[in-house]
C-alpha cells in the first residue's frame, strides 16, 4: 500500500526516543512562531513596550528607598514580570492542545508521553531566553548598565529558573481550565499577583501588611536577587526574606516545582481515568 518502508522504527533505546520525541515537540512549538510572526511580535513587543512605558512614564516620578536609580530597580523587575506572565502562555497552549484533541492524538501514539509536557517546557524556556535577550537590549538602549560577568549569567539563570517552576503551574492550569477563552482570564489573576511584589515599588513604601505580603511574594525574591547580581542592589528591605533574597530566589522555584510538578503529572495521568 505504501511505497515508504513502514516496518517499524530504527532500533534505538527507549532513552533515545524520549529525547527525540521531546525535540520533535519542541520543533513543533518553534515552527508555530515561525508560521505566526505576528505572535512573536506580540509576545516580544509587550515586554519592550512595558520597559519603555514604565521606564519613561513612571521612571521620573518613582523613588527608590535608600536612593539609587529607578531604572536599576525597575529593569530586573520587568524581566521577572515577563517570566511570571509566561505561565499564561504555557497554559494557553496546553488548553488548546487538550481541547482540540491534539494531546489525545499524542497519547494514542507510541511516543513517550512525558515528551508531550517536557517538549512544551523546553520550548517555553527557549522563548523565555529570546524574551530576556530582547528586553535586556531595550533596557541597555535606555541607559541601563548592569555588571557583566558571572553575576549577569547568574541573574539570567535565576530568571529562567523561575520560568521553569512556572511551567508546571501553566501545565496544571492548562489541563484544568475548560476552554481557551477561560485561559485568557488567567491574566486577571496574574496581574494583581505581580503588582503585590517588589517589581515596581519597594515593599517598604507600601502599607505594612501589604509590604509584608509583597516581600514574601516569590517573584520579589527573584527581583531582589537579580538586582544584586546585576550589580545594582537598590531598594532592598531589612526583613529576613529580603536580606536572603538570593537564597529565596533559588528556593522558591524548588518549592513551586515540588508542589505543582506532581499536580501537573497527576492531572496528566488523570486523562486516562
Amino acid at each position, binding site marked *: *500500500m*505504501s*511505497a*515508504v*518502508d*513502514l516496518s*517499524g*522504527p*530504527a532500533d534505538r533505546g527507549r532513552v533515545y*526516543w524520549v529525547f*527525540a*520525541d521531546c525535540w*520533535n*515537540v519542541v*520543533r*513543533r512549538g518553534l*515552527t*508555530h512562531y515561525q*508560521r*505566526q510572526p505576528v505572535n512573536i511580535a506580540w509576545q516580544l513587543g509587550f515586554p519592550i513596550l512595558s520597559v519603555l512605558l514604565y521606564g519613561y512614564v513612571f521612571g521620573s516620578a518613582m523613588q527608590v528607598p535608600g536612593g539609587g536609580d529607578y531604572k536599576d530597580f525597575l529593569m530586573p523587575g520587568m524581566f521577572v514580570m515577563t517570566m511570571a506572565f509566561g505561565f499564561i502562555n504555557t497554559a494557553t497552549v496546553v488548553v488548546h492542545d487538550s481541547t*482540540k*484533541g*491534539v494531546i*489525545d*492524538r*499524542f*497519547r*494514542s*501514539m*507510541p*511516543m513517550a508521553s512525558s515528551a508531550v509536557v517536557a517538549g512544551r517546557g523546553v520550548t517555553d524556556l527557549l522563548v523565555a531566553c529570546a524574551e530576556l535577550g530582547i528586553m535586556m537590549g531595550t533596557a541597555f538602549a535606555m541607559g541601563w548598565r548592569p555588571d557583566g560577568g558571572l553575576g549577569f549569567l547568574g541573574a539570567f539563570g535565576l530568571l529562567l529558573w523561575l520560568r521553569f517552576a512556572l511551567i508546571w503551574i501553566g501545565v496544571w492550569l492548562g489541563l484544568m481550565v475548560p476552554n481557551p477563552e477561560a485561559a485568557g482570564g488567567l491574566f486577571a489573576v496574574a496581574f494583581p499577583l505581580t503588582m503585590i511584589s517588589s517589581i515596581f515599588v519597594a515593599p517598604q513604601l507600601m502599607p505594612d501588611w501589604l509590604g509584608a505580603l509583597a516581600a514574601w511574594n516569590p517573584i520579589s525574591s527573584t527581583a531582589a536577587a537579580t538586582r544584586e547580581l546585576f550589580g545594582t542592589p537598590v531598594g532592598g528591605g531589612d526583613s529576613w526574606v529580603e536580606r536572603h533574597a538570593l537564597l529565596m530566589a533559588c528556593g522558591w522555584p524548588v518549592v513551586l516545582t515540588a508542589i505543582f510538578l506532581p499536580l501537573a503529572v497527576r492531572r496528566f495521568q488523570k*486523562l*486516562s*481515568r
Partner: protein
Amino acid sequence: MEGYAVKAQALEKDYGGKRALDGFDLAVREGTVHGLLGPNGAGKTTAVRILSTLVRMDGGRARVAGLDVARQPREVRARIGLTGQYAAVDEVLTGRQNLEMFGRLFHLGGRRAGSRAVELLEQFDLADAADKGVGKYSGGMRRRLDLAASMILAPAVLFLDEPTTGLDPRSRGEVWDSVRALVASGTTVLLTTQYLEEADKLASRVTVIDQGRAIADDTPDGLKNRIGGDRIEVVVAERADIPRAVKVVARVSDGEPEREDAELRVHAPVTDRVFALTEVARTLQDEGVRVEDIGLRRPSLDDVFLRLTGHRTDASTGTSTGTPTGTSAESSEENSTENSTENYTGKEAAV
C-alpha cells in the same frame, strides 16, 4: 481470537458513579468496517477510548490487533490509528508539517516521515493544499488530514469516532470515500456514529449500544429484517385527516399503523407493496383527503433503534420534532429520506 481485529469482553467503566460501560462486548472481524451505533452518552466514545488505550478499563478484557490493551498499551499504539470527534491536527502548521511531525513522533525518522507525508497528501487528495496552514482548510479537508495522520503507520485497526459529525453532506461523502479506500487496502475500521445512514452505507456489521451495553449485533440488513419489511408512509396536509388516513392504511397493512401527529405522518408495514400503495392513494383521493406525500419506505436503522431501545436516536429526534440540532444532522436526515423513500411516481415507472 483468530480472524478478529478487536475483541472486547464484559468491558466496564465508571465515571464518578455513573456507569458508562456495563458489560460491553464487541467482536470486529479483520478487514471489515464495523459500526458502533448509539445515542449520545450510550458509551460509544468510552468504548473507543478504552480500546485505543487512552482510558483504562475498570473491568473486562480487550484485545486489539491480537494484543492485550491493558498489558501492552505501547505495542497496541503502534498498530492503531485514532480519529476523534474533532480533527486533532495542529491548526497553525501546514498539512505537510502536520504529517511530518506525526510521522517523526511515530518514529519514522525525518526522511521517511517526509516521503510518507507526500504519499498521504496525495492519497487523501490534499496535495494542492499541502503547504497551506490547516487553519485555512475546510472542515472536510481537516477531517481528511486527521484521517491521513491516523494512517501514517498503515495501522491494522483504525478507530473512527464520529468522523463526519458537523460536516456538510459533500465533505461527508469525501470522508466516506477515504474510509472505503482504507478498508480496501486491508485496514479494519471501528466506526462510531450517530448517523444511521452512515453505518448503513459503510459498515458490514453493526453493534447497537445503549446504556453501556451491546443490545444488538448484526448486519445492517439483518437488523432491518428483524423489524419486518417495507412500510407504507402517508403524510397528510390537514391534522384532522390523520384518523381517516389511519383507517385507510389499516385496511392494507400487516400491523397497526403508527401515527406521528407532529409531522402529520402515518405509516405501517405492508407485504403487497404495489397494491397497498395504489389502493391507499386511490382511496384517499376518493375520500377527498389532501395528501402531501405518499411512498414506500425501507426500514432505516433509525426504525431498528426505536424498536430495540424504545426511543429514537438523538440525531433523529432533533429533526423529527423540528428542533434544529445543527446543519449536519438535518442534512443527513434529508439524505436518508431521499435514499430510503421511494417516490410514488418513480415506483410506478419501475413497475
